[in-house]
């Protein structure tokens, strides 16, 4: 649910969370991203960093340079234009991410399919057929959280984490999907793998997808995965980027 007015929550004396709602919702996230954009364009002195998340914009600032009141006043001055921008906002970019759902690349697909009462193949088709929104990054560099998972694939997270994810793992957990970059333990289910590097230090830019972008998956077979993986290893971007509008 979107709040009538954003809440300003202190996170210590040098960080502030501007919270627009209490749920994972594209309209709320659009308001977060619109304020982020306006604030980064204005960048008042003393504001150090902005971090958009699903429903809140997290701000690191130096209260000895800009007072909390002055920062909030600056934000309130931007809320009107940001609201208009958020209402009009449509994803500017759509990424098509190649993803292989074969068991050899999808360690948990059988387990997840069993829990969801369907076949691994139908899980893959359903996952690859949906339209997603990149809401935010979190957890680790290049871990991109996606909304738009079909309801039929919503799955409770594990009570204790599984082992390390493979590089480029595509996962489901709760009502969300996720593309992982580097190997980490997770409570989600690995249902596929992309040859694309979500995060590459030596690439400019190191991160491909921006919060707010639209994302689709393209189901690929193991042979295609290997071909694209070799090309990605050589530095090529194998995900496809389309400009929308």
């Amino acid at each position: 649910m979107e709040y009538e007015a954003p809440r300003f929550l202190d996170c210590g004396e040098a960080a502030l969370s501007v919270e627009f709602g209490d749920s994972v919702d594209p309209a709320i996230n659009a308001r977060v991203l619109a304020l982020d954009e306006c604030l980064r364009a204005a960048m008042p002195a003393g504001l150090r960093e902005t971090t958009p998340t699903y429903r809140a914009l997290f701000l690191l600032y130096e209260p000895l340079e800009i007072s909390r009141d002055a920062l909030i006043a600056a934000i309130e001055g931007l809320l009107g234009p940001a609201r208009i921008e958020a209402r009009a906002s449509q994803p500017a970019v759509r990424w098509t991410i190649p993803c292989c759902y074969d068991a050899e690349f999808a360690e948990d697909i059988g387990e997840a399919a069993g829990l969801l009462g369907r076949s691994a193949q139908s899980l893959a088709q359903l996952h690859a057929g949906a339209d997603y929104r990149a809401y935010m990054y979190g957890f680790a560099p290049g871990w991109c959280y996606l909304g738009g998972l079909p309801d039929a694939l919503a799955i409770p997270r594990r009570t204790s984490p599984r082992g390390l994810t493979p590089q480029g793992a595509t996962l489901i957990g709760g009502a969300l999907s996720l593309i992982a970059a580097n190997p980490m333990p997770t409570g989600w289910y690995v249902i596929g793998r992309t040859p694309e590097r979500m995060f590459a230090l030596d690439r400019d830019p190191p991160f491909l997808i921006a919060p707010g972008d639209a994302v689709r998956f393209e189901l690929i077979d193991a042979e295609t995965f290997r071909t694209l993986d070799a090309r990605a290893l050589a530095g090529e971007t194998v995900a496809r980027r389309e400009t929308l509008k």
Partner: protein
Amino acid sequence: MSARLLVEAAGPGVTIQDEGRFGLSRYGVTPAGPMDIGAYLAATRAAGADSAIEISLGGAAFRAEGATLCVAVAGGDFDIRLDGRPLPSACLLPLAEGARLTLRAGSSGAWCYVAVGGRLDLAPTLGSRATHARSGLGPKPLAVGDALPLAEAAPPPLEPSALAAPWLASSDAPIRLLLGPQDDYFALEEIEVFLNARWRIGARSDRMAYRLEGPAIRHRQGHDIVSDGVAMGAIQIPGDGAPLALMADRQPTGGYPKIATVIGADLGRLAQLRPGENPSFRAVSWDEAVATRRAYFAAIQAGVKREPLSAEPTTESLLAENLVGGVVNAKD
């Protein structure tokens, strides 16, 4: 031969840190940076350095090669020795070629910083030299046999001196915090339990989080929140009710309610606690948090003073030293 600092011993968790990797948290990148910013600034400013080696309880030992290096040490009350000769836990010293500097956990404190005057020749990763071991960003944790080359070496002092940095003093005073951002997830009585408890720092505490052992803190309305940004010092209460103080290597976002956040001026004091030690917390007002921050950083900004090593310093000798040596702050 260009100057290098050789690593002759290193416990686990000895890393390079600068002020942190900022600007990329929107892509899931944790800033990292020093656990105790006050101690880090004392060491780097005294030496004139743009980064420091953060030493954990496991200790470390170093040797200089190619030149006499200007080295500053500051942090917890570690046992510092130069070729076996004990030095104060905060000091500035010339590390002559071949001389061995050892740092071991002393009577208190969990982290100690070694700064080498000049500039370590380390390529930045995403704009910073801070190590974030969990995501593999920045230099690898240091190990025996590593050699850190200097791109520039600052002139060393003539002899060792103590560094007077009052903000490094340990204290049993409660760690101050501001309630929130999600204190409304807890009934007032639970907040009282949290504030009145004598906590114990858990054994499995590290740069990512300090575990607080004590009473379980119950949530009023469930323990899942929609993930949001996490400040250093945030005290998160997961489903089992056992608080975690999120430290320099925390994840950039989190999905559990944060009952309170430690104020900036007390983050270093919290970081310097060891497993088994017993902090308590005190909630302060916004105004007190900002006033404390102002005083803390003003003291650091005013600089670290050198004191002669020989006898106990007298008022006269301190005054004389201040008049002659003035404030040591090579960066400003």
